[in-house]
């Protein structure tokens, strides 16, 4: 554990300052939008969401760079000489990248709430609801939204872990081939193949594990009705079959085991 903690700390030290700087930029962007929200009105939601669109691209780029940079900086000579399992290297890198993306997501969520939601909620009024019922409804809606986030986070982590594993293994596998050029293209081809394998594998395992109970992934709450006398509170839950999710989890674990084996036993310097 001491060795894993050392690797984690190294990754945090290496990428923490950049991540904090980016988070600062996002906060500054939110402050600008907050100050111009009256003037830019309709533009605010797309402008708020805009940086969020870059987060997945940033994740993919960082995942690709996480090993490549160790090789180009020749640090692989240090890391591969360490008496640790290969997955220590992979997992420490993934966890820190996950923290980084989590930080951006949290800043985004905070910005969206403060710029686009908070004021609207404060001035919320309904011709059908008394103030006290209205306030209770707002609280319940926010709680439902929070629960949805809690339900979605593990699924998001799983998808990111799978994407990271695919990038990681395809990069490592491309290094095993005796190529003098075209390694990047080969790496992309392996990436496509692994992506296909994970997709189809999750589908197949989903069919095989169809007996598993369904799992909730999102919740919603709203009011329907035409008059104050006939209002209905609608509480809805989105569920999915657990089979493909569990299948993806198993495949991702297998991918990390394969990556660990390649890193420890096959990759050469």
């Amino acid at each position: 554990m001491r060795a894993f903690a050392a690797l984690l700390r190294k990754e945090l030290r290496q990428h923490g300052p950049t991540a904090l700087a980016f988070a600062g930029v996002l906060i500054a962007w939110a402050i600008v939008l907050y100050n111009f929200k009256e003037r830019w009105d309709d533009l605010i939601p797309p402008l708020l969401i805009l940086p969020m669109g870059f987060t997945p691209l940033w994740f993919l780029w960082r995942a690709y760079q996480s090993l490549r940079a160790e090789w180009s900086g020749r640090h692989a000579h240090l890391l591969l000489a360490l008496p640790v399992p290969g997955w220590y290297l992979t997992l420490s890198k993934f966890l820190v990248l996950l923290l980084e993306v989590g930080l951006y997501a949290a800043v985004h969520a905070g910005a969206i709430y403060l710029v686009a939601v908070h004021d609207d909620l404060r001035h919320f009024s309904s011709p059908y609801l008394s103030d006290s019922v209205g306030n209770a409804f707002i609280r319940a809606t926010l709680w439902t939204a929070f629960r949805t986030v809690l339900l979605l986070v593990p699924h998001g982590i799983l998808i990111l872990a799978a994407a990271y594993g695919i990038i990681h293994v395809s990069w490592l596998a491309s290094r095993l081939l005796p190529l003098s050029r075209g390694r990047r293209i080969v790496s992309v081809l392996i990436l496509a193949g692994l992506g296909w394998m994970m997709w189809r594998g999750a589908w197949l395992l989903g069919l095989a594990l169809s007996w598993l109970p369904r799992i909730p992934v999102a919740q919603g709450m709203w009011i329907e009705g035409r008059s104050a006398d006939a209002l209905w509170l609608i509480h809805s839950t989105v569920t999915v079959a657990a089979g493909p999710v569990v299948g993806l989890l198993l495949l991702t674990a297998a991918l990390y085991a394969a990556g660990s084996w390649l890193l420890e036993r096959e990759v050469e310097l």
Partner: protein
Amino acid sequence: MTETAGVPGTAAALGDRAPVREAPVAESAKPVLEFHDVHKHYPGVDALRGVSFTLPRGVVVGLLGANGSGKSTLIKLAAGMLRPNRGRVRVLGLEPGRRTKARVAYLPEVDHLYAWMTVAETLDFVRRFYGDWQPERERLLMEELGLPERQRVGALSKGMRARLRLVLALSRAADLILLDEPLSGIDPPSRSRITRAILAAYRAGEQTLLLSTHEVLETESLFDRVLVLDRGRVVLDGDADSLRGQAGRSIQALLEEVLG
């Protein structure tokens, strides 16, 4: 300072699979490094062609040869950074891997340190992985080599970075120390300082040191044994004193003769 303090630490780092059941006598009698008919190819190049030798515990071996003779490949194979295409490499009787890495100190030819770390952070990072780390030896080496702890690695000169890499390799009570060109690119006054440091840190009789170098004049006094490679083959393997005695001249002169 108790140099044997690193031995239980090493066993702990190796976990349950460490060969602790064997008697210490058997462990010390076991060859530290064995190459049996090892071949290594790169695309278009035969880096090693049937290399065989055995190194016992407690010797300093000079690995000599021209550029491209296969010295770095041989060291990387022993460090577990490469795998042979044919033949067998064994470190303490084990195939190079995680277990042997806990017992081998490897100084690569390239500058592999993180520029953003300070000297102290680099030492702190590396020492956490090895149960055989010797803080006292680290302190002595730092003093001997005059390294500034608080300076960033990126701000150090090439020579100072080479010294730091040497501290990382020599601060351990590793069974096998692999130094790949530790004097490469170092100015002559610093070379003698580094050679002195190697001599001061090395524990005769306990550790096996394999040192590849072009700077034979500065280092040949260290060698107990000499292994000369030429185009992937061992062309000379012998006891350093006997070779000097037979030829009646320095290893450097002998090397020039052997390699033409």
